[in-house]
Every structure is written in structure tokens, then in C-alpha cells.
């Protein structure tokens, strides 16, 4: 019973936090879908713990908690990888903007030449 409530509370807490962050403009909507899905999954597992057993059996895993943690771990890895991809993209954008700005602000006359 307590396992159910914990999972439910975590799921709802994550969902509420995310909506709060979007409301306060701390996070772009683009990044929130993932976390809302995580919150939904967490809440579902809380309300219906037997779903884990059911899904685990589909994938041929005999011990459902192992399956639960494996999926959670894989999901986190994917999210972190996506963050690194996003960082690389942003680094490129920042560099290109700095380059453009540098070219626009070009100086070509020395004080003594003019």
C-alpha cells in the first residue's frame, strides 16, 4: 500500500512541479513533454502497480522490479544523451553568433592611419 502511495505522490509532485516551472517561464515547453510523460508513468505505476508485472511479462522478465529499474535507468541515459546533443547544438549557435558579431563589428583603420 505504501509503495503505491509513494509512487503516486512522486508522480503527482513531478507533474505539478513541471506545470509550475512552465507557468513561471523557467523551462521551455519543448523540454517539458518528457518530464510530463515520466510523471504520468510514475502516477500510473502508483495507481496500478500490477501494470509493471504485466509489461515485464510481455518482455519476458521474471522479476518485475528489475524490469522497472532497467527501464528507468535507460530512460535517464537517453535523456542525458539528448541534453549533451542539445548542449553541442547550442555551443555551435553561440559560436556562430559570436563570429557574425565579430565580422559585423570589423575594424580596419588604425588610429594613426586615418
Amino acid at each position, binding site marked *: 500500500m505504501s509503495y503505491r502511495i509513494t509512487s503516486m505522490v512522486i508522480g503527482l509532485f513531478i507533474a505539478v512541479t513541471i506545470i509550475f516551472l512552465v507557468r513561471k517561464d523557467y523551462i521551455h515547453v519543448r523540454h517539458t513533454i518528457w518530464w510530463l510523460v515520466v510523471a504520468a508513468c510514475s502516477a500510473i505505476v502508483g495507481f496500478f502497480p500490477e501494470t509493471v508485472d504485466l509489461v515485464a511479462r510481455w518482455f519476458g522478465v521474471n522479476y518485475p522490479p528489475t524490469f522497472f529499474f532497467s527501464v528507468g535507468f535507460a530512460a535517464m541515459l537517453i535523456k542525458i544523451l539528448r541534453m549533451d546533443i542539445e548542449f*553541442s547544438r547550442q*555551443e*555551435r549557435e553561440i*559560436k*556562430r553568433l*559570436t*563570429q*557574425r*558579431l*565579430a*565580422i559585423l*563589428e*570589423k*575594424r*580596419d*583603420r*588604425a*588610429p*594613426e*592611419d586615418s
Partner: protein
Amino acid sequence: MIVVVPAYNEETTIRKVVERIWDVVGCPVVVVDDGSSDRTAQEALIGGAMVVSHGKRLGAWTAIQTGLLFARHHRIAPIVTLDGDGQHEIEDISVLYDTYRRTGAQVVIGSCPERASKLRKIAWRFLRTLTGLSVQDLTSGFRLYGPKAVEILTSKEALLLDYQDVGVLLMLANKGIPIVEVPVRMYERPKQSGHSRVFNNWGAVIRYMMHSSVYGVSKRCFGNNSKKEVSQ
């Protein structure tokens, strides 16, 4: 033709380099000041260069790329890059240019493998094996780029590169751009300024080798990609 000189805190040498280029070659010079904290930009201006300044330090390769972007923007080609610390012989720009005119190669590397220490030679050989590149002088900053090479190197993909060596050469080789090497003279860098950005301390060496190895393996190219010019 235009000469691009990336510079980070080179106030002691940059003016002389720019003036030498004016005297010897007489073509426009762009100094890309990579967020220097000294008088590099002012000294370059006094020497007669155009100066393009990064607001923040972005690294040697990104500075070169800004120069390429600048030249492309103004439709000037080819582009010669050389270092601001005076280690390259300005007279040898004509060697690169003549080779470009004669062979039509989009990339001409001014090569001086003799300058490398024993350790650096081992590192280069290792990287050559790993990447499949047959370029002798992998890190030379004295190069000429034709318009096709510039187009590739100013792409957004090239923004994630850190050094003007393995990554840049692999990107060009993988697009089928022929690379030609010609021997040039190189001098010792002055001790106090212009420290090697790569081979100056062990942490940097290890990081550099790891980056280059991962890059080299993931982007390995196959086939012969470099011609060595023995003339001159």
C-alpha cells in the same frame, strides 16, 4: 587572396607579422583576435590589418573559421592562414600560392615535420594510422584554402571542431577534397609568447590525444588523400 591570422595575446609579434605580409605579399590581412586581454587588436590595426574580435575566447580553430567566414562573406579566395607568433616564413606564402595555381588543389599545407619533437612525431604517426590520413604535418597552421574547402569549413558542422588539424583534415578528406603538402620553413616560437596551444602540458596533451583519437576513429577516412609535393 587574403591572409587570415588567428591571434590570442600576441601583442609582441602580431604587428611585425602583419607588416611583413604587407611588405612581402601586399594582400589584405585579417587578424582574428580571439578575445585577447592584451593589445593584440590595436597592434594589428597599427600594422595595417583588418581586425575582427571575438567577444569571448572561442579557440584557435573557431578564430580561423571566423576569418574564413569573413573572406567568404566578401567573396575573397583563396585564403592563407598562418600563426601570429612569427613562426611561419611570410615569403613562403608564395610557395603555397604557386602550388595552388599549379595543382588546383583546394588545400595546400605548408609542411615542416622536422620541427616536431620525438614525442610529437610518435603522436602524429599514431593519429595517421588511426585516421587513415596520409598528411605528414598534421598540425601545421600554415595553410591555403581554396573556395570549395572554405565552403565546407565554414559549415555549422565544422563549428564543433577544436583544432585546425585532424578534425579539419578529415572533414575535407571525407568530402573528397584533395590535400597537397609543400615543404616550408618554420621557426622556433619565441619563448615567452606564443606557447603551443596543444603540446604545452601533460593534461592538455592527454585531452588532445583523446579528443583526436575519438574523432579520428569515428570519422576515419579510407583511401589515399594527400599528395606530397617534392619540388621547391
